[in-house]
């Protein structure tokens, strides 16, 4: 039963990846970090203010945020997971992380594989890690909190699951705002 629930989540996520959404702009490149003015070691007199960035739609799917190499690994991992080969699916996703260590979608996929392997604790840790590298992306966060809710439910933590579900739905409304 537990397995089935986990697999449902997994497949749902895998489905997201194969949904091509080409109407959105490509993912942002590495945002330029705020670099304090060069020169003196003591406090700078002036620090250039951060330019106000235009509102950019955050990536909704792995397609929009990943290189072809990572996408091909995600595809391979999906196939492995669908065939029940979770160990190899995880290994393949780790290989993707070597290429893009801060790709929130890869961590999310790892979380769902861990869930399918019955490792709720690791699933939650991976989903939260995904959140921590997702920046301000309500799409990713909504799915991550759903995964966390599922991990907690399976682990018998009802109230924790409810709380996670609430966070998932608040991020879902945030993402619907963005869609308008």
């Amino acid at each position: 039963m537990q397995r089935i629930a986990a697999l449902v989540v997994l497949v749902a996520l895998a489905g997201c990846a194969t949904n091509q959404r080409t109407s959105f702009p490509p993912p942002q490149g590495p945002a330029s970090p705020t670099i304090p003015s060069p020169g003196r070691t003591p406090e700078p007199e002036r620090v250039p203010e951060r330019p106000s960035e235009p509102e950019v739609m955050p990536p909704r799917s792995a397609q929009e945020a990943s290189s072809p190499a990572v996408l091909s690994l995600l595809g391979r991992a999906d196939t492995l997971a669908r065939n029940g080969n979770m160990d190899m699916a995880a290994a393949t996703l780790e290989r993707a992380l070597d290429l893009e260590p801060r790709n929130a979608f890869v961590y999310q996929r790892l979380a769902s594989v861990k869930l399918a392997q019955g490792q709720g604790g690791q699933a939650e840790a991976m989903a939260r890690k995904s959140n921590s590298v997702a920046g301000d992306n309500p799409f990713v966060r909504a799915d991550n909190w759903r995964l966390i809710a599922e991990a907690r439910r399976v682990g018998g933590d009802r109230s924790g699951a409810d709380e996670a579900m609430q966070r998932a739905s608040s991020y879902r409304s945030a993402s619907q705002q963005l869609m308008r």
Partner: protein
Amino acid sequence: MAAAVLAGYMVYLDGAVRAQFEGTRWTLPAKVYASPLELYSGLDLSRSEIVSRLDRQGYRASSSLSRSGTYRSSVSRLDIHTRAFHFWDGQQASREIRLNFDSTGVSSLSALDKQGDLALIRLDPLMIGSIYPKQGEDRILVKLGDVPPMLPAGLITVEDRDFMNHWGVSPKSILRAAVANLRAGGVVQGGSTITQQLVKNFYLNNQQTLVRKAKEALMAILLDAHYSKPEILEAYLNEVYLGQDGGRAIHGFGLASYFYFQKPLEELQPQEIALLVAMVKGPSYYDPRRNPERALRRRNLVLDMFHSAGFLEEDSWREAKKADLGVTARTVRSTSQYPAFIDLVRRQLLGQYKDADLTEEGLRIFTTLDPEVQAAAEKRVSDGLDKVEAARGIERDSLQASAVVTSVEGGRVLALVGGRDAGFAGFNRALDARRPIGSLMKPVVYLTALAEPSKYNLITPLDDSALSVKLANGDTWRPQNYSKSTHGSEVPLHYALTHSYNLSTARLALDVGIPDVIDTLKELGYNGDPLSVPSLALGAVDMAPMQVAQIYNTLAAGGYYTPLLAIRDVTTREGEPLSRYPLKIRRAVDESPVYLTNWILQRVARYGTGSTMYRTLDRSINVAGKTGTTDDLRDSWFAGFAANRLAVVWVGRDDNKPAQLTGATGALQLWAGIMADIDPRGLMNVPPEDVVEVPLRLRFDPNGASGNDYGGCSGTTPVPFVRGYVPDGLSDCDSDIMRENRYRREQPQQRQEEQEEGNWLQRLFG
């Protein structure tokens, strides 16, 4: 009677010969592989960087690209015929691929063969060593059918022309040897056949006595009677001794091919095969690395023999004789190329595998070592120490150092340097030299405080006045700042860490409680049990660089702990998976206080004790880090990280006398060099969910704030706060001096007037 004894002896020998030949003939040390290079569109390596890696792995430039292990390079592209390799996750076939390049690296990857598109491909990994007993044989088994035909043909030609026809011994050659020995009045020459040589290696010690000779001959005849010529030849290919690498004996052509040419036997060229065949006669006497001229002469002699025997065509023969020896560079080293790293691998395997499993079963161990990062770290450590000694008038070669480099995310150990001479397998300082960590401890104190956002934020004023603490044992602890001065009672929290103040940090630690600091330290991944004493706040705890790396890796990964690993996978000799080391993460510390702590550590790098790093490092790269210096300048530390790389460096002396270096003058210099060479990506500073930023003017200066505070809103820096805990009344454009902000709030009108008056006066007199 004598005949019966001889017959009985023959039966005994026969049993021995067969048991040895058919039993487990060889123990196979585990083979250790580096992390493979992934090739894909978007990879930020230039063509020449990839070519140098191919060269290191024995790939050969070839315009035809007809065999695996070759490449073809032109101005903006690179074609590679990759080698097939059995990875931990399955077989990867040999492919012919094309890489195109632009200014940033690989711009596209495509297939030249008809085996379908590909988005990425791994090069076969570099073999970095074996796990063998202290004194032992190492080999890679080959099958007769897989080796280039020129090798067995050449061996027979040079070593034993009569091999296919004799019965294990060759009366002709014995006669010839006997004559030579008689003339010399002793045993100077062996008329040994290949079979006899095999017997000698297999069963007998190295004494050259007549009795032994006779025994050898008898056994050779028995061996020849029981086994086919191809079986004997294959055993010979795998058994023959071909060189020495410290305590490791290089046996068989399979390993020799890697040892001398860094590539598989199948890819050897005629002159390379000839060199190996030439060396059979005396691997040490004809060592191509130590005696290149002698080796070259004998190789060419062997090439002539190949040619006159008829299996080396005229053109190839001339070509081959012109070629140089082609052995890969390798300094004379006691064991493997990466003793410190292999040591770590071995320790991580211990407990899971018995020693015998590792030294006998031929396991394949896939590690996280990145050969490029390792090479950079080794070079920067050894060059850096030379420079530091020269610049500071320190006795030459008196300093030691060690370094750990990790991938941050995933916790992979990319490089490990155990000492100044990285090839020397001695004391592994990166794992075993535990020294006080000094100020490297401070971020742990600040993190503990910042985890209580209701009490501490980045601009909380800290007291940096003199301090004395009565200890449980009756002593009094009186810490001092490095400068021996104090900095008043209102140092903003961020400033105290940026400039590594001891007094304010000690007071802060006593405020939050040493036991809480210890809890944080353990959450971050420290596995020891430090004494709960006030001086812990300033680093009174001994750690090895690897332990420091574990703690800082958790900070670098945003509060997520991942055990540092050197191994990804272990498979059997045949490639069956044995153990995986999957990525495991634990949310160790709340992200928000980690973000705040790392924000300060970036200021350490920009403006604080670490700022000289930017003499070496590109200014546009945001990194975070901390210096560490211990009493009497004994230990010099630096721990720091970019988004994708973390490095910890220790510099000091083995005898623990003062090294006369601070963290900044010693370890930091090595660290910056390493970092500059390993493609660091700048930290991005995306605040986590529960962090907000307030633009503030950071104007605290312990020598009195710089000039009058004219207010305004220029020159602000976004300062992060935990959501919901921005201090009451703090508003945009305030400063980091809380007293000043309060003052401005209380008298907004007056301040405005003063400011205008100031400006007016300035205009008048300016």
